[in-house]
């Protein structure tokens, strides 16, 4: 069944754009319509000016916003030409975006304790989630997996929101030496109290987290990332294979039930 997107096209204007960590930048832009309508786990497709030969928008989820002041913030990893070009969007740069797109995270009724596991730039949509969860009085354990200590992002915000912050780094430069999945495994083993697990990050990591949650019989939500052309359900390029058939990542997702995804 076709899910219709809530995305609209809005103008936006860069307020802040600066390095946040190694190869990761933070952008804050003004877009009152988006700031007031977007829920945690939703995303938007940003037009990146400067190279007409590169026609498609880039999809980003958001970390922090202020509906009253009308701004939205996100962090982006420099992975290709498009994200590198984004670093030249100085404050005042005007562009437009299509959003809010996708379904966003779902908070089940009576959730009291959540495990949230983010890897790399997958932390971004979980920051907004943790803010929402803690505002609703949900106790959160947040596990961040970073490649190295210089790539840890949003630790302050997450702890400020009141989540318990656990860290792993691939190179052992800070926190647990290894992957976030080791920490999440321990946490799941030591506590039966989680009502829900949320995860976003590299596909193998999410697959492992979903398996751990399955093992522990705890519902798990995963945020999938697929190459997409439009972000609002028209191109059908961003399919996710699920037990219920192929679904469209940008409208049926990006958040899926971990049980449902065929990895």
């Amino acid at each position, binding site marked *: *069944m076709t899910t219709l997107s809530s995305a609209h096209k809005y103008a936006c204007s860069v307020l802040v754009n600066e390095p946040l960590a190694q190869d990761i930048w933070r952008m804050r832009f003004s877009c009152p319509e988006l700031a007031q309508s977007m829920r945690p786990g939703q995303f938007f497709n940003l037009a990146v000016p400067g190279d007409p030969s590169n026609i498609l928008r880039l999809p980003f989820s958001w970390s922090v916003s202020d509906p009253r002041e009308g701004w939205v913030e996100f962090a982006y990893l420099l992975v290709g030409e498009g994200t590198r070009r984004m670093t030249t969007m100085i404050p005042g740069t005007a562009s437009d975006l299509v959003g809010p797109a996708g379904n966003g995270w779902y908070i089940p009724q009576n959730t009291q304790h959540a495990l949230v596991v983010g890897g790399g730039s997958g932390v971004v949509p979980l920051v907004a989630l943790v803010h929402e969860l803690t505002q609703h009085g949900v106790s959160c354990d947040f596990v961040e997996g970073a490649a190295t200590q210089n790539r840890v992002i949003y630790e302050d915000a997450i702890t400020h929101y009141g989540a318990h912050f656990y860290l792993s780094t691939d190179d052992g430069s800070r926190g647990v030496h290894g992957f976030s999945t080791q920490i999440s495994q321990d946490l799941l083993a030591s506590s039966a109290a989680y009502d829900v697990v949320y995860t976003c990050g590299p596909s193998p990591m999410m697959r492992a987290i979903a398996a751990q949650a399955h093992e522990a019989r705890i519902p798990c939500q995963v945020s999938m990332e697929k190459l997409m052309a439009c972000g609002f359900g028209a191109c059908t390029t961003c399919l996710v294979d699920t037990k219920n058939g192929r679904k469209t990542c940008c409208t049926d997702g990006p958040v899926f039930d971990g049980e449902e995804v065929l990895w």
Partner: protein
Amino acid sequence: MVNDVSMSVDFAGIRLKNPLNTASGTFGSAQQFENFYDVSLLGAVTLKGASAVPWEGNPQPRMAEVFGGMLNSVGLTNPGVRGLVAESGAYLAGLASKGTAVICQVAGHSVEEYKEALVLFEELAPWASAFELNISCPNIAKGGAAMGSTPEGAFEVVNACRPLTKRPLIVKMGPVRVQEIARSCVDAGANALSLINTISAMSIDINTHKSRVARPTAGFSGPAIHPIAVRMAWEVCNAVDVPVCGIGGITCGADAAEFLLVGCKAVSIGTENFVDPAAAVRILEELKDWARSQGVSDINELIGAFEC
């Protein structure tokens, strides 16, 4: 106050309020665009191709961005004619009632499958103004371009489908042997032609040595292909007397105007729908501005006005 330019065109007996149409596969079932503008402002919409039974389409990755455009390897994922009608029939009936022509695209892996899908549409889609036979999808192993890349193959599909409907049959053509295939389609009873479909192309990851999409080749679309598409549309307009809908890399009114000048009665916006979801209405306005600047009172005066 001067009267505004008349934008209405006749397309195979269908009166379109303006020449703006949408390329199948870039416009979903049209309702995906209602958040961006009132879709009934368009002359026509062409829906994502549908087959007699649902198709899953190709595996991931189904998209790769390339210089000046994108490759898609969707492979006509669709819920089947019944699924499409169930999901969007009510919306589309409403759109048709507002005077926007709804064109249903018909997909198949074989002549029989095209016929089955068309029969279903004929029965279930009374709101459809016309049917478009997609004999040029480059992303499926059977049917599509595998059937429509020769004059004989194209004739066979069109000829088999022709008796199954009295509504206009449009043939969506690929970027190969366009004059020969256009004549074959018309000989077989096509009422109109639309072209071009995406161009078969490749993009390879030079580190993994594998295709950047799931299959070796995929369909190339976007502004990069515009000059090729205009040339092919011109050749087809010169080869046949049925109306032609020009498609390929249109990003603005000027791009659309070139198709009209070479003789196309309508134009479809494709990949630009992804880049700017409000593209089709923007381009409609830009086309009107252009018509005004050319001092005409009726857009038809500019159709085929190319001087060579």
